[in-house]
């Protein structure tokens, strides 16, 4: 058949030629065409086809599952540390779920277990129960749930060094570092002896039993938590350890990853671990009532321990929260510490900043467990300076303030000349005010309104005069300039005098303000005369520069005052003389 010699029939040959022309040699054209369209054809029906086939005989799954598993496996193998690290919190939750599922199961089956188990231990128990003449199940009950977690170790997984240990009895914790290393070595040994593959997490030890205690071993990605337990611990304690270990990883993620043998970063983890140092004492068998009371006591103790521990963690979290709050202008947090169940904050606060509690509450921090001690300081933060300015302006209802852009503020409204000068003075007294640009061009200063009721004005003038007469400005020894401490009184004085001069102008009163400087008795008479006069002059000049009409002011130096309290003499005090109100007739005779 393969023989295609020249003697073969020529008819067949031409048919072959035609076919070759039409569809190519070996169906090449058709195949080409098909291949070209294959992607389109398949992609159009692939999902439906997969579904059809899967419903028909389930073979799709059989092909896909091993493929997916294999590639997942490969990627886990290649990045196992990374993947395990990321999955750990998730895995932790799963483990906890599994443990609680196990517990439910456990409780349901306890009775059956007690009656039917035949482990070597149960045989000993049966023997001992028989020996002491109690029912086997009673004996088991007396053995179960009677335990103490004596010591906890947190061990660095890679090096086997001890990161931290807590013990119910501090005397027993010596050599904890050796025990830790030993445990890791044993764990390495076991993992290596029983698992042929490299990354076999499940082959590592869960617990080591010795004659007198059990070591419960919980493995995390970077650290191992080992609990030395005497007696028989209830299974739910595993969950507790697991949780503590997860929290440990969460809290100390960075120091764990950067660990170079220095244990100091882990010193604070006692709070986390102490929760796990639980125990349940054997109850004396003295009647049901006592046992009930005992149980109650134990439960109470455990509950209060747990709440205490809970609060401590709660506090630690809270502290962390506070430490990471966004900075508040005018508040500088200098220290946070936990003490006696409270968080103590030490901070510096500008009086214009919101109160510390207000600040914390704004970020949702509960302040019941927070005690705050603050010292004041002057903040030069623009926001604080602005607040101070706003507070100042709010005392003048006729003024308003608006922001033009960051740090540019515009004042507008109307205000009397006297008030304006006072305002300016106060504004300029705000520390750091030069950091803001304040545009005051929109403030209008109206002429003083005329008051028709002259008598009323006269009464007002008298009232002002008497207040002015009550003002005493104190000076430091041998000083003739006004101290900063007197500024407030001085500002008040300026305000009163400008009002007085306005009123006097309106109703045409003559006013004289005596500014009387004095001194104490130390020094010569001549010197005291000069000093007292200088004090009066300085006050006068200051008033003039703040807009008080110079013609009203009569400074004089009284020299030293013969007072018992010598220091009282270092003053400037004032007195005001006002003429009777002039009537219109007086003015135009």
């Amino acid at each position, binding site marked *: 058949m393969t023989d295609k010699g020249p003697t073969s029939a020529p008819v067949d040959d031409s048919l072959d030629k035609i076919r070759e022309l039409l569809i190519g040699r070996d169906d090449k054209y058709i195949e080409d065409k098909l291949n070209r369209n294959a992607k389109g054809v398949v992609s159009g029906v692939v999902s439906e086809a997969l579904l059809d086939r899967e419903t028909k005989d389930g073979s799709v799954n059989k092909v896909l599952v091993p493929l997916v598993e294999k590639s997942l496996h490969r990627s886990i193998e290649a990045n196992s540390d990374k993947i395990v690290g990321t999955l750990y919190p998730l895995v932790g939750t799963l483990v906890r779920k599994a443990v609680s599922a196990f517990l439910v199961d456990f409780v349901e089956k306890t009775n059956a277990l007690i009656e039917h188990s035949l482990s070597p231990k149960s045989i000993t128990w049966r023997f001992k129960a028989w020996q002491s003449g109690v029912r086997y199940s009673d004996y088991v009950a007396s053995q179960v749930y009677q335990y103490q977690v004596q010591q906890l170790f947190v061990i*660095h997984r*890679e*090096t*086997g*060094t*001890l990161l931290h240990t807590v013990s119910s009895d501090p005397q027993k914790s010596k*050599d904890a*570092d*050796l025990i830790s*290393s*030993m445990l890791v*070595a*044993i764990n*390495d*040994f076991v*993992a*290596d002896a029983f698992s042929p593959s490299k990354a076999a997490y499940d082959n590592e030890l869960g617990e080591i039993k010795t004659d007198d205690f059990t070591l419960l071993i919980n493995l995390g990605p970077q650290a191992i938590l080992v609990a030395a337990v005497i007696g028989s611990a209830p299974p739910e304690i595993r969950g507790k350890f697991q949780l503590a270990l997860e929290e440990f990883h969460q809290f100390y993620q960075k120091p764990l990853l950067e660990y*170079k*043998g*220095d*244990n100091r970063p882990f010193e604070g983890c006692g709070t986390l671990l102490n929760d796990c140092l639980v125990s349940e004492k054997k109850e004396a068998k003295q009647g049901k009532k006592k046992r009930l009371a005992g149980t109650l006591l134990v439960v109470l103790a455990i509950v209060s321990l747990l709440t205490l521990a809970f609060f401590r963690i709660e506090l630690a979290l809270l502290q962390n929260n506070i430490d990471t709050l966004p900075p508040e202008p005018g508040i500088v947090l200098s220290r946070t510490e936990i003490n006696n169940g409270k968080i103590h904050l030490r901070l510096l606060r500008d009086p214009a900043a919101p109160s510390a509690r207000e600040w914390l509450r704004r970020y949702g921090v509960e302040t019941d467990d927070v005690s705050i001690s603050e010292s004041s300081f002057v903040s030069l933060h623009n926001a604080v300076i602005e607040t101070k300015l706003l507070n100042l302006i709010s005392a003048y209802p006729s003024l308003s303030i608006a922001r033009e852009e960051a740090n540019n503020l515009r004042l507008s409204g109307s205000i009397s000349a006297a008030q304006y000068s006072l305002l300016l003075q106060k504004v300029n007294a705000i520390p750091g005010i030069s950091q803001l640009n304040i545009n005051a061009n929109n403030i209008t200063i109206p002429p003083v309104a005329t008051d028709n009721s002259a008598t009323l004005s006269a009464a007002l003038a008298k009232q002002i005069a008497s207040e002015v007469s009550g003002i005493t400005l104190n000076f430091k020894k041998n000083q003739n300039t006004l101290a900063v401490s007197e500024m407030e009184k001085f500002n008040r004085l300026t305000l009163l005098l400008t009002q007085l001069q306005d009123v006097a102008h309106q109703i045409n009163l003559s006013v004289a303000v005596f500014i009387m400087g004095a001194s104490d008795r130390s020094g010569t008479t001549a010197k005291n005369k000069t000093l007292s006069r200088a004090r009066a002059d300085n006050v006068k000049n200051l008033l003039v520069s703040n807009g008080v009409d110079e013609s009203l002011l009569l400074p004089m130096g009284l020299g030293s005052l013969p007072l018992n309290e010598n220091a009282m003499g270092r003053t400037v005090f004032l007195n005001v003389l006002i003429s009777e109100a002039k009537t219109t007739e007086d003015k135009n005779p």
Partner: protein
Amino acid sequence: MNQKKVCILGPTGVGKTSLVKQFVEGIFSEKYQTTIGVKIDKKQLSQNGNDVQLLLWDLEGIDRYCGFNPRYLRGATAYIVVVDQTRSQSLLEGLDILSMAREHYPDTPAFFVVNKTDLPTSWHWSEEEVNEHAKSFTSLIKTSAKTGDNVEDLFSTIAFWAQ
């Protein structure tokens, strides 16, 4: 305090256990030695006023044929390969061990210890040959676990490196 893990490797009988014993006085985990092949001891040193605690892992049962569990080297700050200057073979085995360790942990400093200096040298290696081999290590120290010669120095050198 800083804790540093240091592994002690070498063929059987070269004096690893004796070195640790000489250094720390008193061996902790005697009973595990045979079971899992590791003995661990600790010793605290002071380096320039900083306390360092060395956790010394004495790995038993390593020889040319048996190999060792490289997991035990995990996290070690340094390891020591001990050989015995009365046995020529121990140097070859020591070099094998070094290359096995290097295979898993190429960057960990390795110290070369020639032990039993209280006995006359009875191996066929010349001083030059030993020095040549020492070049694959971080440093060479000759000790006697029996007289205690250089033992203290060995560990304080390691503590210094470990910082």
